[in-house]
């Protein structure tokens, strides 16, 4: 552990003084424009200062020879718990999913552990930023018998390198995580029940079906009431009403009510997406749909209302026993054809490094390759409100750059150099160190 910290430290510190880098003669994939053959990129003070066919290096500028290599913008994973969860099976190492039904005031960012081993693993695979969500998987959030949560807190957009969470922060409050209710048949073993036959197969009598829907509507009403209460608070605050008392929960809701921070809502099916959209319309809030398993009729609605979606996992089983085997593989292509804006998320710290391979699987099943690349770079940057800072190789943007041996989405491609905010990061993790150590065992 100590050795790892010192190595990373050196990687960051050694280049800190030398903050100009020229990547020379590489094939550059800016994502937002056509690829450039044999181009150079000048990095100054953490930003992309220049992109051109020929840039002469000033004295003292570190030159990275890019001949035969490619340069891509760093990848962004739109659904992780990086820094919040170390070993998912050990509760003491997990800081997601607290207690309480409505907890908008909980902030993921200050709980991000910059020395989590996951960061090095993710960044040397090219994931330079990530959304880290406070929901699920922890002590609360419905797990270990704890009561369910509706609002789990605020997700952060972070860089995957930095000495402190402050340094890592891109956006402290990138989204509010809302667990929207789903009608669930009572009892049973939690097996899959297609919605259109829930009445027949799961809730096996008219009364249990009615009961299920009643519970669902009650839950939606509870959420609605919380939002209404927050709105009343907002008005009282604006009016400087007598006896106004500052409330942290409702303070945290203000940017959401103002439409400055989107609400991320997990919704698996077209019906649930529709419900979420309806709720967003009623509340006049911005939303992002997470992890749909089917889009169907909701695709049109998402497109019409310009609501973005986080897709993942691509490498997932179909929902029902008789759904097409490639249902999850083809969903991104379906979203693309419908004109829905989307980004990919891995939804699991242990698989963050496989983000580009999830995207590639979608390509195998019909998604245009450029769109797959966009969905792990510029799309998430735009969805999370930092399209002007991250997600492409453009002048003035953060120098989050990957120098690779080939196609970024191919498994066999290796990353040769990695820059986050212009700083070259050593391609080392606990895993590479163990590898090197045991290579030497005779």
């Amino acid at each position: 552990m100590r050795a790892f910290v010192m190595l990373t430290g050196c990687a960051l510190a050694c280049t800190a003084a030398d903050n100009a880098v020229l990547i020379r003669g590489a094939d550059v994939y800016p994502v937002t424009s056509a690829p450039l053959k044999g181009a150079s990129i000048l990095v100054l003070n953490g930003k992309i200062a220049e992109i051109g066919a020929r840039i002469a290096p000033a004295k003292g500028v570190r030159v990275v020879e890019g001949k035969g290599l490619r340069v891509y913008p760093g990848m962004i994973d739109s659904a992780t718990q990086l820094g919040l969860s170390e070993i998912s099976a050990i509760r003491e190492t997990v800081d997601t999913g607290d207690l309480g039904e409505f907890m908008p005031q909980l902030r993921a960012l200050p709980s991000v552990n910059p020395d989590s081993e996951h960061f090095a693993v993710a960044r040397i695979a090219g994931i330079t930023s990530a959304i880290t969500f406070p929901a699920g998987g922890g002590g609360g959030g419905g797990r270990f018998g704890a009561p369910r949560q509706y609002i789990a807190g605020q997700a952060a957009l972070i860089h995957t390198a930095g000495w402190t969470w402050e340094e890592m922060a891109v956006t402290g409050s990138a989204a509010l995580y809302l667990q929207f209710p789903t009608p669930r048949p009572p009892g049973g073993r939690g097996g899959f029940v297609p919605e259109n036959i829930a009445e027949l197969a799961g809730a096996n009598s008219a009364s249990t079906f009615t009961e299920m829907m009643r519970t669902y509507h009650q839950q939606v009403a509870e959420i609605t009431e919380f939002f209404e209460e927050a709105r009343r608070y907002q008005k009282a605050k604006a009016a400087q009403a007598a006896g106004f008392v500052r409330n942290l929960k409702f303070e945290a809701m203000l940017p959401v009510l103002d439409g400055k921070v989107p609400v991320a809502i997990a919704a698996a099916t077209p019906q649930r997406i529709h419900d979420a959209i309806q709720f967003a319309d009623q509340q006049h809030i911005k939303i992002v749909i997470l992890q749909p398993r089917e889009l169907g009729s909701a695709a049109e609605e998402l497109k019409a209302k310009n609501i973005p979606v986080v897709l993942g996992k691509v490498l997932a089983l179909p929902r029902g026993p008789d759904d097409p085997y490639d249902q999850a593989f083809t969903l991104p292509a379906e979203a693309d054809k419908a004109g829905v804006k989307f980004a990919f998320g891995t939804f699991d710290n242990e698989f963050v490094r496989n983000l580009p391979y999830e995207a590639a699987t979608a390509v195998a099943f019909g998604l245009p390759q450029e769109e797959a690349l966009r969905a792990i770079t510029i799309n998430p940057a735009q969805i999370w409100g930092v399209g002007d800072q991250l997600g492409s190789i453009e002048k003035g943007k953060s120098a989050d750059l990957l120098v690779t041996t080939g196609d970024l989405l191919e498994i066999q491609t290796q990353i040769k150099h990695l820059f986050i905010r212009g700083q070259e990061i050593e391609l080392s993790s606990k895993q590479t160190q163990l590898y090197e150590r045991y290579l030497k065992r005779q």
Partner: protein
Amino acid sequence: MRKSWILALAVLAPLWAENIVIQNATIMTVTKGTLRGSVVIKDGKIAEVGEKVMMPQNATVIDAAGEYVIPGIIDCHSHIAVDGNVNEGSVSVSSMVNIKDVINPEDPAIYRALAGGVTAANILHGSANPIGGQTIVLKMRWGKDAQGLIFEGALPGIKFALGENPKRPGNPPGGRGATQTVPARYPATRMGVEDTIREALNEAKAYKAEWDEYDAKVARGEHPLAPRKDLKLEPLKEVLEGKRYVHAHCYRADEILMLLRVADDYGFKIRTLQHVLEGYKVADEIAAAGTGASTFSDWYAFKFEVYDAIPFNAALMQRKGIVVSLNSDDAELMRHLNTEAAKAMKYGGVSETDALAMVTINPAKQLGIDSRVGSIEPGKDADLVIYDKYPLSDYAKVQKVLIDGQQYFDRDTDLSGRPAKALEKQKLIDKEKQSSPRPAGGRRPVG
């Protein structure tokens, strides 16, 4: 479940032809190099492989121009096609139970595995006990009954398990939210796991001695009273006799070494170490023991004992001379073991052929079925996968899968059959709605 099975069968009844020629393909034989040419299949077996082949009469020709043929993928660790729970967790030694008795041929995971190029899999009991239940090797012959799935002639196995999983029942949960306490089951530590295994082997050794003595007397023409059959010890006796393979779930280097030494003490070999994520730390010892290793490509940190897991594990173990396979232990991951193999090339620089071997001939060797499957060679079973693109890439997808020369998966057929399938499903739903008026408040049994 039954409905979906019938639906799928109607669409996907395997095509059967005596002679098949797959031509114009890039053929990655694994054991005999890669070539452009044809594979000739006769009576379910590979008859010829070459750039130019003798066209048999009345052969069905599959034109695979631009496509790739590899041997059927073999998953050395899977729990699909099991009816219900895979763990008989009530006892520390559950060697009396057998996965063979609970095969569910209607599990859609079989079809999905096929669609991912898997033609055979080692179906294991769970890891709740230091010594678990008996295991079975299946071929993914979707549509056949339970008996028809069994890989005929493959030696059966037994699951052993070390570390956190088997000791978990000794440490019942009692944290926040716990509403009931479960009585603890020995063992609760790695020490106890070793002891449980030794105690059972000790019993099995004594049991074997009884039977050996009995058999010797019978051989001498005597008429002794037979010892009592013990269903728990019988499979362990087979282990001691080398007639049953031990597939041992393990993670940490210490426990791996422990099990190798226990096996030494009782005079048998562990056939495969499963998961074996710290195998790279004791690769010399594993290699010296002649034990195979079946691992994940890149899983890590999902629990404490895998915190030192590294994606270079397969490469490091292979370099030390261990027969290494990459497995799934997961119905989803099982569908893209080809890309798991590609990861062995990325992490640790395993060659293309060696990487492909990790999901074909190596698991075949580990399961003792390499004379039948695992490579494209004349005389072997025609278990083949056709990919549209270079298969060690995440851009590739499976087009066709043959087992015993019969086509069990065809992507075009799957796609073209979908509208009819959807229609049939809707009809069944409508019929169900009509035929069962809602009872007022009563519960109706669900079939």
